[in-house]
């Protein structure tokens, strides 16, 4: 897009009365494939591009998008924003865009659009083989392959002009185990801010086996017991508990409105002293990382909780205006059809001192959630729920029988205070996080933790 048109669009929005005008231009090439029981069934690829324009006046934000990038269409969208602002017009608008350089934290070795499609097919085949070779009880296997290359340009009326490129790659393996009329599923979904070199960083076949292992373990499990009990949550995807129970309630989206249980708790003890947590978008090649956020601000590592004390929220531009606080580089969006808002990137609890085995050995009776499923939270009440994909009982300090069908529910502000042991085995895992600005890649993570008491929804 020509610089002149960018300037024109921003000027129209500013002249219409906006204090701040922003343009987000995106082009994306994507590729995805689906394999069922070893046979490739779907191959789809394509190109999308579009522009999102935003005007902020006071605490009010107006957003418009279009994928007609002609001058007429862009000007028309800018004028619609100017009209909707309904503020006094600005007489003199000066605009001086200065191109910003940014550091690339995620170098790419093998760009996915330069890799032959049959090489991608081969990766899927390996995943399928791993899962199918694991056990006779595996009846169905589905493998999804995704990659995309996103090029963005962001300009705003404060003079910012910045471009960036994001590459993301993911493999999702879904295995079903069958016994009689019953079916249980296992899932793994490794992803990264990497190109095709991602598949040199782990054994794809083993990953397939892992999905199958979970399904087989669960088909031979009994239903989890119901009621209040201590819960030990393993590392990696276990971090979804922090993501749901606390992370969402720290986003400016709900904090600025006062609609979060943590809205007035900055500097206060909100978690047990053993808990420290960060949101870090600067981890090289991580799934939720980026050089800049979707408002063009440099990303950062934000200390959210230190020794149980709330240190920071996650803030985007608009949230910052509403809260009178600087951005933490947390403005994110799924694509140009969404206005950006405060979101998590890679969010995790920092490691503690215990060996995971020590935590289990020190617990007479508990549910051990080895692998978590997804979950959700209502930030205004703090109520969360999530499912346990692979569970076990802990009895007398030992892991005993596998259990299925458990759900964990509670309130975020309560569970944070009940985390009483933290392991030293921090690891992250990948997920898609959905909220107001769409579905975005985000890492969750934690070491093994113990929660002294949590409601387990199960049977019996």
């Amino acid at each position: 897009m020509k610089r002149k048109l960018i300037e024109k669009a921003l000027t129209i929005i500013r002249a219409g009365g906006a204090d701040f005008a922003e343009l987000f231009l995106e082009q994306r090439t994507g590729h995805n494939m689906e394999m069922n029981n070893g046979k490739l069934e779907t191959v789809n690829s394509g190109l999308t591009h579009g522009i999102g324009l935003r005007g902020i006046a006071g605490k009010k934000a107006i957003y418009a998008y279009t994928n007609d990038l002609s001058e007429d269409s862009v000007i028309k969208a800018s004028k619609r924003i100017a009209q909707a602002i309904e503020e006094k017009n600005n007489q003199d608008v000066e605009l001086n865009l200065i191109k910003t350089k940014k550091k690339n934290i995620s170098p790419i070795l093998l760009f996915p659009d330069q890799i032959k499609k049959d090489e991608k097919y081969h990766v899927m085949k390996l995943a399928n083989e791993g899962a199918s070779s694991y056990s006779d009880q595996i009846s169905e296997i589905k493998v999804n392959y995704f990659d995309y290359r996103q090029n963005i340009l962001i300009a705003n009326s404060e003079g910012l002009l910045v471009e960036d490129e994001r590459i993301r790659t993911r493999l999702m393996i879904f295995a079903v185990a069958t016994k009689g009329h019953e079916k249980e599923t296992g899932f793994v979904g490794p992803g990264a801010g990497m190109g095709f070199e991602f598949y040199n960083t782990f054994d794809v076949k083993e990953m397939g086996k892992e999905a199958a292992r979970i399904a087989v373990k669960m088909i031979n499990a009994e239903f989890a017991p119901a009621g209040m009990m201590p819960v030990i949550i393993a590392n990696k995807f276990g971090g979804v508990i922090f993501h749901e129970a606390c992370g969402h309630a720290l986003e400016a989206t709900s904090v600025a409105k006062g609609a979060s249980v943590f809205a007035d708790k900055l500097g206060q003890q909100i978690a047990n002293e053993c808990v420290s947590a960060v949101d870090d978008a600067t981890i090289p090649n991580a799934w939720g990382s980026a050089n800049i956020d979707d408002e063009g601000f440099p990303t950062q590592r934000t200390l959210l909780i230190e020794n149980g004390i709330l240190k920071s929220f996650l803030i985007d531009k608009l949230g910052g205006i509403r809260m009178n606080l600087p951005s933490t580089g947390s403005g994110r969006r799924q694509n140009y059809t969404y206005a950006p808002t405060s979101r998590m990137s890679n969010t995790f609890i920092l490691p503690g001192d215990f060996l995971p085995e020590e935590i289990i050995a020190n617990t007479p009776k508990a549910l051990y959630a080895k692998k978590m499923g997804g979950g959700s939270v209502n930030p205004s009440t703090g109520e969360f729920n999530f499912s346990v994909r692979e569970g076990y009982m802990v009895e007398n300090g030992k892991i005993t029988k596998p259990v299925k069908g458990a759900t964990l529910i509670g309130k975020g502000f309560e569970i944070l205070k009940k985390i009483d042991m933290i392991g030293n085995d921090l690891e992250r895992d990948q997920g898609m996080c959905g909220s107001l600005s769409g579905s975005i890649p985000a890492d969750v993570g934690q070491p093994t933790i113990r929660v002294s008491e949590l409601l387990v929804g199960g049977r019996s």
Partner: protein
Amino acid sequence: MNIKEFKKLVFKNANKKGIENFELFHISSHEFECSINKGEIQSYKDAENGGASFKAVKNGKAGYSYTEDYNENEALRIVVDALENLQLIDSDDVDVISTSTVAVKDWKDYDMAFDEIATNKKIADTKLLEEKILKKDNRIIMVPYCFYNDMYNEVFFANSNEVEYTYKNGGGGMYAGAMASNGKQNKFGMDFCFTTDPKKIDIDRLSDSVAEKAVGLLDAKSIKSGKYQIVLNYNVLGNILGLLVQMISAENVQKGFSLLKNKLGEKIVSEKITIMDKRYYPDSIFNCPADSQGIATKDKAIISNGVLNTYLHSLKTALKDGVSPTGNAFRSSYKGIESIMPINIDFQDGEMTLEELFKSMKSGLYITGVQGMHSGANPVSGEFSLSAEGFKIEEGKKAYPIEQITLSGNLLKMLQNIQEIGSDKQMSMVMSHGMYVPSVLIKEMDIAGNE
């Protein structure tokens, strides 16, 4: 270049490349949305976009490619790309394109009623909704969500068998969520109204309902774990029936992802249950005359009197099963491929009012909300365990609100255990298709609580 010119170019390129069967699916969407917080505009979105997907079929294999740019380069690139993509396919399933004609002449498209409302009026109404909710009860401390939204889609479909049609659907509505507090506990209540007819949006009724939902749950407590008789609110039942929607997809059945494999003609749930899929339901924003593959939509009974009548089919799954396609292959976007989806699920209602359901139950729980459908429910096994809230019912009446419990069960067992069906059929908040269901009384379900 407009889409019809683009189509001509694409089809010319496809013929040149020797592709025998192909189609172009195009959708353009227009959306307006605003939200209000404390009397001020919180968000405002005014937008349009669109794109096209080319599907090439050769020797029974299909490849796809999409674009948002209608120019000569793209008209060639998507053809070459789709052709390359289909050459990788090694599935034994045979893909075809439609040869049937779709008559859309008698079809009444969405009349764009919401587009005729002035933007100022939309904003003013949204402000009014927030104001009314706040005024209802002084325990309502905030309305974190208060939205107005309208949208419409224009679909254009054409294939190499000269099947070609366009249609338009859409509508609008409002939704709001309020937060109530008693100083110790916060409770959240929400409600919505989506329709093709702006006159059906009753701000008074909506504000009453949102306020009542939030305030009604204050002072909620948990209860003892155990088995309870349950009345499921229509919206909750609609949410849980999302599992059934996945089980009746012929694609899931054929791939072994459904418990309903080999169950056609068998009684799978209580004989009180009849569930239809309808191409037109009054005021539904999902009504449409054809699916995304060139097949006319039709009304069909999925379950009649407890017996499974049909799965929902695409062209490909129908060919595999040796049946006719049911017109249920939809694309939610040009970026994706078809997935099997109902249009408007219509769960035949009964005769009892909600109060009569309570009376019939005597003692039990009335569940008004569940959370965690996307994680705590397994569409393959039908098992679910969801965070829930609602009311304790004693002597046939609401006794007190409950929270922090889980509701667990198996979809088919639950539908087998339905004792009574309510007369309060309404739309559930489901995003991808219409879901019209009543409240129901269920013999027994598992509840975990912490009392």
